[in-house]
């Protein structure tokens, strides 16, 4: 996602990470492959 944002002319940065799969049936998959929720801020160039 970060790369796609950058390719569209944004300068994205991850602000916060969330362990959004903890306690779900996909928790193990998320931990194994490092899947996390993130907040991303990206400003459109002027």
């Amino acid at each position, binding site marked *: 996602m970060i790369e*796609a944002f950058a390719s569209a002319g*944004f300068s994205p940065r991850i602000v916060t990470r969330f362990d959004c799969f903890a*306690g779900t049936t996909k928790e193990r998959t998320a931990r194994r492959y490092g899947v996390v929720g993130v907040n991303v801020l990206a400003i459109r160039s002027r």
Partner: protein
Amino acid sequence: MYAQVAAAPDGAFHFHRGPHYAAARLGYDAAELAALPADVTASFAGVGNPHRIASISEGAVVLDVGCGAGTDLLLAARRVGPHGRAIGVDMTEAMRRRAAAGAATHGLANVDVRDGDATALPVDDQSIDVVISNGVLNLVPDKPRAFAEIARVLKPGGRAQIADIVIGEVLPDDALRDIDLWTG
């Protein structure tokens, strides 16, 4: 699947839903969520919190890409006030109905819910101050097109405040092909 989340949010899914999850794990304000219609917040299935990225100003025009049942959309509408606008776009009719009904129940006349998807946003060029989205873009097959659409609709200097999932490593082929790893 998301029509099922709209119809029966208490069902069995591989992701969390609802206002308790949003407040406890994602930092939403529980009191603010409690003020929204329960039909809206029960179907919340976000993975982050676009409202914590930066504040949304009164009078702003906000677009929620994949607004679902409308939790983030209605929160945005409350923040922009009567002189602003909150536009929600979603491809699932059941979600759009919940969002529109929730806005009406909540007395938010500045909410506009539209049929569409992230790769063809039904929104004018350079008309949006802030684009928000929560747990949607990872589901879009043509991501470059979706990000180009966000760039198209944002005013110069406008902000995208996006919550979504990312993966920490390059996946091996066997993991990529194992659909059971990634679906409920």
